[in-house]
């Protein structure tokens, strides 16, 4: 006789989130880019438009057969590092100038939504999942990364600090990248700084959270953390804080998160994205989530690599 018994609280369960094939980021602008005015926005979207043509996106989505891929577009507004003008004027400007170039923004996200969204402390959540890239001879007993607020891709150059004055002076040695190909490209990233006990997360760290959200890889207590809110009003509030973290602007848009992401950015964002990839390489995504997404992609006839960074594509525009 076969029998079964289960307790829901004892099971490994994680939510399965709706997924597109490709999430396209049409831009990421600083406050000054937005305050430069409507003409400058229009010029920006004109530069972006040819690279977001349907044929290009279909190629990047890499779906099998002749199926039409599910593609959604998004735009990230920086309301975290600077005070922006009012969403009541900025959002219509963005949407209209994009539309003038034939671009449609499905989802609009606020950068501060990468810190906290719907009572979920996303930035802290990701920080708590960092597993530093181990230097040679690491047996797993290194101090936690959160003590320093910095994350690197190798071994820092040894330096004698003031508290170590009594120790013999170490000769200078270069910083070394782990797993380098003969020569190092060492990168040390500031994850946050603190003034008066208040932590400010760095731009690359929040951009890493943003990629994880777009890839549908974050869960909180097994639940989905990205729930875009439909916005079907014609007007927008005066304050960014009065908007949800992610607004869904088109009711029939494909899902926000996707198996793969593609970001079209100005060339000046290249160092930020190098840092983002270095951070993402050190984020431990819940194994169940990793497996679930690979299985789902297999079910759709796609071959998705297990490494997160291989799911991310960029186009850096000349300015």
């Amino acid at each position: 006789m076969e029998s079964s018994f289960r307790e829901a609280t004892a099971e490994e369960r994680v939510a399965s989130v709706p997924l597109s094939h490709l999430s396209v980021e049409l831009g990421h602008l600083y406050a000054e880019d937005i305050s430069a005015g409507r003409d400058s926005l229009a010029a920006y979207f004109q530069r972006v438009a040819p690279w977001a043509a349907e044929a290009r996106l279909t190629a990047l989505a890499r779906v099998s057969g002749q199926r039409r891929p599910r593609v959604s577009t998004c735009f990230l507004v920086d309301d975290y590092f600077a005070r922006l003008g009012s969403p009541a004027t900025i959002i219509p400007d963005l949407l209209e100038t994009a539309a003038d170039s034939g671009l449609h923004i499905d989802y609009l996200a606020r950068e501060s939504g990468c810190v906290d969204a719907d009572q979920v402390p996303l930035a802290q959540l990701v920080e708590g999942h960092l597993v530093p890239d181990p230097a040679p001879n690491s047996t797993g007993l290194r101090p936690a990364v959160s003590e320093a607020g910095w994350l690197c891709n190798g071994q820092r150059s040894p330096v004698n600090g003031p508290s170590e004055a009594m120790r013999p002076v170490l000769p200078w040695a270069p910083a070394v990248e782990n797993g380098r190909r003969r020569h190092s490209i060492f990168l040390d990233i500031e994850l946050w700084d603190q003034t008066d006990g208040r932590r400010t997360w760095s731009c690359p760290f929040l951009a890493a959270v943003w990629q994880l959200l777009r890839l549908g890889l974050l869960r909180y207590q097994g639940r989905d953390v990205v729930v875009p809110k439909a916005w079907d009003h014609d007007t927008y509030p005066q304050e960014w804080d009065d908007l949800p973290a992610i607004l869904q602007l088109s009711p029939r848009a494909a899902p926000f998160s996707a198996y793969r992401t593609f970001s079209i950015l100005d060339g000046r964002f290249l160092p930020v994205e190098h840092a983002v990839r270095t951070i993402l390489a050190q984020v431990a995504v819940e194994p169940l989530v990793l497996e679930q997404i690979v299985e789902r992609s297999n079910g759709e006839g796609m071959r998705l690599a297990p490494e997160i960074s291989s799911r991310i594509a960029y186009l850096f525009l000349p300015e």
Partner: protein
Amino acid sequence: MTSGTSSVHRATTHRPDPGLVALGEVRTGLLQHSAAIPHQLAERILQLVPGERVRLSQRPIAHALSPELMAGVDCRLAAASGTHIDGTGTVLTRASITGGTVVQASARAVVGPARADHRLPWSHYMARPGMIETRGKIEVDDLAAGFIGQPTSSSALDLSALSRRMMDVIQGSSQLDHAPRMRTKRTRLRWTARTVTAEQPHGLVEFAIEDDVLRTLQLRTKIDRIAMVASLCENLALHDWLLSTLLELIEREQRGAPHAPQAVLRLRPAIDSLLHLWMPAAHIDESLHPVWEALERRAGFTRQWEQLRDRIRDQVTLSAVTLMSVVTEGSASE
């Protein structure tokens, strides 16, 4: 596509492969608290990864299991032959509390050869949680033997230090009163699991008590899902600890005045907090039950436990009779 909840089998990692060996260590001890703790407190203490769930079950016994923590390693691996083997990858550690009373901390990794002869970008290893890839060929028997015989102070991969640190984190929790009702030892179970081979198609289980704290278990089994093998080893370590602890308490009690009626009072904490925890193979996948059964046949865990339990009950009964007769004699002589 709709949103929903699903539980997914861990099918994509750790496929059985004769070139793999799983290594692990489990530490078991009495929770540093004066009483069994409720489920909610166990859940708070085991909340080791922000945003990840503690898995809780009530049946057949209260059991709380922490999420898994990952640590990066890039170091030498102990080999019995002394061959220099370097590996890079991640180790998984986790902790559990059973019956609100017994705490366990475990660390484990599956070791296998890498396809590349150089270290790959870290993202490669992070996509394979709990896997260590060695550069160059490995002999799994050599690695398994090297791990089992590894001295605690060595510069090689040290799962012992990782499980100890996890144990210290749980036992050091500020939510515990650090006043346990009895003195007990912590035990360590070091285990290896290799896949079944043509020569050993029916599996193999070797369990050894190396000294008063160290036990070793060597398995050859179908390692479909290494997390399940780890659960089996944790379950075995729990029962070995219960047995060892009870034996030690009885021995200690007998070193005192064994026949004094008060002696049985010294066993009271064990009766209160340990006797009901015997639940072999609870929460163990059915495919691994034969391993338990094989161990039972050879080492007779349950037979010995039942015998000890009966002995304690007999002593309690005898003491009660003795106490009653003392009382009766006392009242008769008045």
